């Protein structure tokens, strides 16, 4: 008997990434055909591509954080609010506290990580469901943001504008005047996390925990330590999203990242990281995110109204989930459970 691995072309075709890549090509072709009907607009241009990549930059870090947590079977619903708080801290630190830019960013990321630590403690020490713990944390963070955004006279400032050319460079600098540095950063991060997930012991641990937490623990995997790391990691990455957003807009806002509240989760799910954990990976999540943002960009270029865009993007997610469900059910049927 020849016991080996399934390799080669079959494995690639069966993979989630392949499906998403095909979907992406379909989207590009469709939009390229439809766009000219909207006053002769063009879809496939350098500007569109760069635009999509720029749209990806902020939610990319949410996606990485959410993806890692979800592989291990957990979830963080406080991501967007943590990001918004992080952006707010940057603004307040520079404008009101007169901190230098690097100290402001460090403070923002540290506070984000601290919230992640609290999330982890709630889940691991007090045995909260991650869903409940992080949902509550989301409200708490929102309230903290109010405190941070209230000035000495007791006046709440929903938006705090500041000026820092250095911070602005982070979100806006373009290498050679073409490629945004934030895009390079996000691609590097996706690659690093992708490699960690698929090639290291730590990554393997996440999949085993997500697949069966009890079995993993009884087989000597230190789930608690890993869980702590993941929640802190996810929160810190959300903090990076917030810094990037703040850098681009040169403001801290209570509503920052509100549109991307579920983008990270959605991209991860679309990319094949199942809700219960134990499957999927960074490549899929990245492509999931690209599909979402390409779709939104395309809808803008073809001039669709925003409601239609919402309806269709929701339907896209539902369709992707249904496909997953059907294929999983087929697999289950095949093995008789």
């Amino acid at each position, binding site marked *: *008997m*020849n*016991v*080996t*691995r*399934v390799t080669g072309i079959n494995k690639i075709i069966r993979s989630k990434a392949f499906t998403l890549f095909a979907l992406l090509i379909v989207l590009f072709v469709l939009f390229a055909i439809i766009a000219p009907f909207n006053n002769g607009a063009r879809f496939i241009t350098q500007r569109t591509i760069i635009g999509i990549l720029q749209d990806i930059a902020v939610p990319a870090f949410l996606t990485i954080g959410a993806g890692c947590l979800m592989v291990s079977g957990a979830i963080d619903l406080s991501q967007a609010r943590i990001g918004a708080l992080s952006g707010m801290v940057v603004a307040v630190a520079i404008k009101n506290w007169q901190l230098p830019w690097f100290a402001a960013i460090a403070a923002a990321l540290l506070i984000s990580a601290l919230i992640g630590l609290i999330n982890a403690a709630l889940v691991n020490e007090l045995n909260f469901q991650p869903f409940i713990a992080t949902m509550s944390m989301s409200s708490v963070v929102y309230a903290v943001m109010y405190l941070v955004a209230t000035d000495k006279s007791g006046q709440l400032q929903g938006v705090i504008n500041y000026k820092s050319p250095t911070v602005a460079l982070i979100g806006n600098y373009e290498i050679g005047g073409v490629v945004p540095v934030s895009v390079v950063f996000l691609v590097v991060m996706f690659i690093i996390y992708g*490699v960690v997930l698929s*090639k*290291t*012991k730590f*990554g*393997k*641990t996440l*999949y*085993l925990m997500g*697949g*069966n937490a*009890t*079995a*993993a*623990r*009884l*087989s*000597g*995997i*230190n789930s608690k330590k890993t869980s702590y790391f993941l929640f802190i990691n996810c929160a810190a990455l959300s903090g990076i999203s917030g810094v990037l957003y703040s850098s681009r807009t040169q403001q801290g806002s209570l509503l920052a990242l509100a549109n991307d509240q579920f983008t990270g989760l959605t991209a991860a799910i679309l990319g094949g990281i199942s809700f219960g954990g*134990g*499957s999927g990976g960074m490549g899929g999540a990245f492509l999931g995110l690209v599909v979402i943002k390409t779709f939104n960009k395309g809808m803008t270029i073809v001039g669709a109204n925003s409601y239609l865009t919402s309806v269709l993007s929701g339907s896209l997610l539902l369709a992707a989930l249904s496909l997953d469900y059907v294929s999983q059910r087929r697999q289950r049927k*095949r*093995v*008789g*459970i």
Partner: protein
Amino acid sequence: MERYLEFAGVGKAFPGVQALDDISFRAQSGRVLALLGENGAGKSTLLKIMSGDLRADTGSVILNGETVSFTSPFDAIKAGISVIYQERQLIPAMNVMENIFLGDLPVKSGLIDAKKLKSDTKALLEKFGLSIDPEIPVMFLSTAHQQMVEIIKAYRRNSQVVAFDEPTAPLTDTEIEILFKLIGQLRDEGKIIIYVSHRMAEIFQVTDEIVILKDGKFVKTLNTSETDEQELVRSMVGRDIGDTYSHLSRNDSMGDVLLEVKNLASPYVRDVSFTLRRGEIIGFAGLVGSGRTEVMRALFGADPVLSGEIKLDGRSVSFKTPKDAIDSGIALCPEDRKEQGLVLWRSIEDNICMPVLSKLRKGLFLDTKACERVALSSIKRYDIKTPTVDKIVMELSGGNQQKVILGRWTSELMDTKILILDEPTKGIDVGTKAEIYQTVCDFAKLGIGVIFISSELTEVINVADRIIVMHEGHITGSVTREEATEESILALAMAQ
């Protein structure tokens, strides 16, 4: 019109195993038919096909002359077939009457007719002579009463066929009497009754005819009144039992003391003391819930140790987590393979390499070649039937899944000194069982101390060198293989 349920050439295959092969027999109304066979004979699969959980690959199910085909359990219920499983299918927080009338609650002008619901439920309960409060949520009922509620639910739906899957397993003797009375009542009303059980005495007490299955094939139908236990066993096993054990090649040289447990107490067990030598196999017997598993969990760092001492190689140890225990050379194959042992949707390789991932690193990364090598050597050693190392464990048969766990704890990178096997042969076919017994003896020959927990008395008596018996969280006795009889062990297990 004569009423019957017939299986005509029913077949069903799962990956790597033909679970049912051309099964044909007929169950008559007004009679209780027993389905008898060893684990893996195909009884559960047959029940699942009957109840619409699974679809047969070949053949058909015929109810009163009409071929029926179900795509879901709902279809089967509509057609009048109810299966009472061991796992309750009630809604715990809902009360008795709501559960009985679930899906068909009496309605008066758009609202639930609570009065009628209550009086109808009372009438049903009285008919069967049961004194259960119709308004109590079923989660507060005893297991036995929950089962009764389920039977009445099936009766209320006017089921023509009622099948029971090991119904007496969780019941006491008096409760069993009540159940049998109920079954008798159903039979006298002309229901078709199918009864699955391992307990011989019951089969003779409650059934009219017996269908025997073996390895997914129909063996024969016997009239209960015209057969005896010996004949049934012979037909089920296809040979005389006892063979398996006399052919075992055992370890005959025990080493020094490896493990010493003194007055161990956890939240679930108390005052547990025993020793284990190198190369020794000790069996743990006792009824379900007697604390066998819990002793091992405490020993393994999975449950807190309240007091007592554990000495490994003469050195006092205390394990805070399973990881600590594993690092000291203790391995546990848990009772529930699927829930606690395996990561079902991951590969064989992942499942085998799980505890040794730290040893499989090359710099920052996992050494995939080494992972594959470790997995392959375990696959070869235990003859796990798989085409690839990355086949997901879910798709393997129960026996091969158990071998994956054995492979995990005895892979070339593990240094296992003590191997704890909790019900290692549960749900496994006879052939693989024999392989596992030999494997256990082979471990002993390598100097590993083996703890073998089993609910099958014959098995534990014949495989272990010494049998420790537990009852309600403490040890009631310890006997050697030579002295042990099923009766003596059972007496200790019931603390008589």
